[in-house]
């Protein structure tokens, strides 16, 4: 028994030492909370692309707004002041703050859980030890070493992630790659509950001081998500809440089709604020998807083309939890469609616009 404990301790020491790397590089600290909000998927109350009313509610659809938990950035560890999001980034919508890092950096996320359920922050792509994985399962490490696997309501936990070369661009990538972070205490329910955000890792020597790639003028993020509200942790309380469910619909989840929303950055039917860009800019689109059963998407840009993975195209293929980069140099001014070409998704409102200015 003591041998077993010793070997576990050794393993933990090993894990910790593996995670500690010589750091002459930057430590980037983010203060992120999971906050409860009433999220409105269509704040304008109409279909802004067709300029007509939203489609009638489906029989068991609660409405267009649901209580959710989302990641939001704060100015410091007191978590009293939200970090303001500039108007040009309003289109990010339901997504948490963009985390930027450069190969060689360390990312520290001070996480406060203001939601009523235990939540976590799990990063894709970056190097985390078991204590910063934020995902509970049997991996031979005692749960007591992994408090980040389920941060209780009101509590704070600090996740530390390294950014080795294997978290940065591969030989076929541009100057930066996309990852994501999301809650993983109960993965499928957590992702439908809301907390998710993008991570950008830029190659060493290719970054500005803020971590963005030097050769890119404008970064735009778009998340294609089928939000299954009936799989959200809040669904029972949403059904019971007359503000959310004014028709008193008797709905039970999970996988209730009527409460699945087809969204880009948490917006339907063109309700996403329009990201703008200028002619001739090097625009980098970071496109991601979530993990519901219909999360196979075909994002399509009108008006311009992109280069993704060395190929010229105007359409990407996303599987669940995809993270894809596409570069655009706009040459065609105007307001253009950006939507998913899967018929069911498009009909369900998975459409947005972007604007190219002179």
């Amino acid at each position, binding site marked *: 028994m003591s041998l077993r404990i010793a070997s576990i301790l050794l393993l933990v020491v*090993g894990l910790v030492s593996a995670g500690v790397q010589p750091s002459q590089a930057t430590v980037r600290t983010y203060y992120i909370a999971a906050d409860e909000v009433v999220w409105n998927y269509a704040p304008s109350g109409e279909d802004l692309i067709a300029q007509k009313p939203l489609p009638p509610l489906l029989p068991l659809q609660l409405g267009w707004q649901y209580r959710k938990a989302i990641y939001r950035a704060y100015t410091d560890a007191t978590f009293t002041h939200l970090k303001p999001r500039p108007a040009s980034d309003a289109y990010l919508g339901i997504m948490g703050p963009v985390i930027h890092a450069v190969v060689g950096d360390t990312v520290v996320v001070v996480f406060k859980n203001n939601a009523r359920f235990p939540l976590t922050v799990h990063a894709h*792509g970056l*190097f985390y*030890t*078991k204590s910063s994985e934020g995902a509970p399962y*049997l991996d031979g*490490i005692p749960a007591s070493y992994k408090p980040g696997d389920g941060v209780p309501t009101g509590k704070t936990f600090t996740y530390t992630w390294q950014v080795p070369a294997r978290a940065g661009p591969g030989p076929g990538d541009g100057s930066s790659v996309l990852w994501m972070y999301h809650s993983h205490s109960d993965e499928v329910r957590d992702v439908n509950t809301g907390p998710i955000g993008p991570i950008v890792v830029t190659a060493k020597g290719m970054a500005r001081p803020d971590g963005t790639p030097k050769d890119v003028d404008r970064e735009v993020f778009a998340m294609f998500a089928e939000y299954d509200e009936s799989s959200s942790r809040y669904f029972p309380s949403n059904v019971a809440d007359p503000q959310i469910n004014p028709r008193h619909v008797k709905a039970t989840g999970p996988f209730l089709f009527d409460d699945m929303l087809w969204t880009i950055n948490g917006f339907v039917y063109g309700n996403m604020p329009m990201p703008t860009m200028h002619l001739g800019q090097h625009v980098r689109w970071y496109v991601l998807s979530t993990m519901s059963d219909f999360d*196979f998407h075909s994002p399509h840009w009108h008006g311009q083309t992109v280069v993704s993975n060395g190929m010229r195209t105007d359409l990407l293929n996303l599987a669940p939890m995809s993270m894809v980069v596409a570069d655009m140099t706009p040459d065609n001014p105007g307001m253009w469609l950006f939507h998913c070409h899967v018929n069911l998704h498009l009909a369900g409102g998975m459409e947005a616009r972007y604007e190219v200015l002179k």
Partner: protein
Amino acid sequence: MKAAAALGIACLALLVAFCEPAAARVRIHYIAADEVMWNYAPLRMNPIAGTPLPPLLPTQLGWTFQKAIYREYTDATFAHLVPVAPSERYHGMTGPTIHAEVGDTVVIVFRNRTRFPFDIAPSGVRSTPNPSAVLPGATRTFRWPISDADGPGVNDGSSLLYVYESDVNQRTSESAGLIGPLIVTRRGQARADGSPADVDREIVALFSVQDEFQNPFLSLNLASAAINPRHFSGREKTFENDNYIHTINGFAWGNMPTPTMRVGERVRWYLLSTMTPADGHAPTWSGQTVLSQGNRSDVVALVTPHAVADMVPDNPGVWLLVCTLNIHLLNGMEARYKVVK
């Protein structure tokens, strides 16, 4: 002087060894389609969550089914199975790995030891004779010449993946369990066994929704009191859905033995998929990243039957390999892999 000469000769020998195109090999495999009782969850629990298996769905037969899988034998007598090393047991129901270098010819002596007609047909590679049904009990030899056009393309690494399957009726054959990997290595980049010389460890993972309703053994499974203790007729409304089993290498709910690799090894993951309407997978790793087609990622879109991803593990521990599609993950399409120092 003598030493210098010896060194020169040694260098020359090395040069010759590296420059001379390897002689094309004929690689013979004795492969049978065998009937087996397959248990998708032999641990009778979920070792990832540390919980019992979920309760059987209302009309689910169970976790054990009669199936047919490809197995490799030592010779044409088909008397002795080629032993599976403990480190390879995670391959589960996935057929034996067949390696070839471009220029080689793979010879498959195929015996059908099941009660249904099956064959063995490679995707992407020519077969002579053309694959066609091999009757129960019969043996037939197929030759798969591996041409340059079958080898890795400019964007591929040193090897690529095809699948072999029975194409007598692909859907029912896949649901029986008949599928395996064919790995083709670029000319001049293979070891003697055909595996790529620049890879330290190859891992095979078959992501499959096994559709037991389409399994040709269905009526036998229904008739067996051991397999069908609740005596379903198979005509229940929910029967088809309840008997989709969500598997990696034929294991559900983390029951796959854990493949182990070392920090710093060059690991190549070969990801296969069956192609039932319920398939279409997003294999995702925690703990490490991979390179696939030159792109850094931790997920591969497995919407075609095969994909390759390279990993150099740098993070020791036990980590997840799952399909992140919610329906698949919630139904047990999850496994673990282990990285040791």
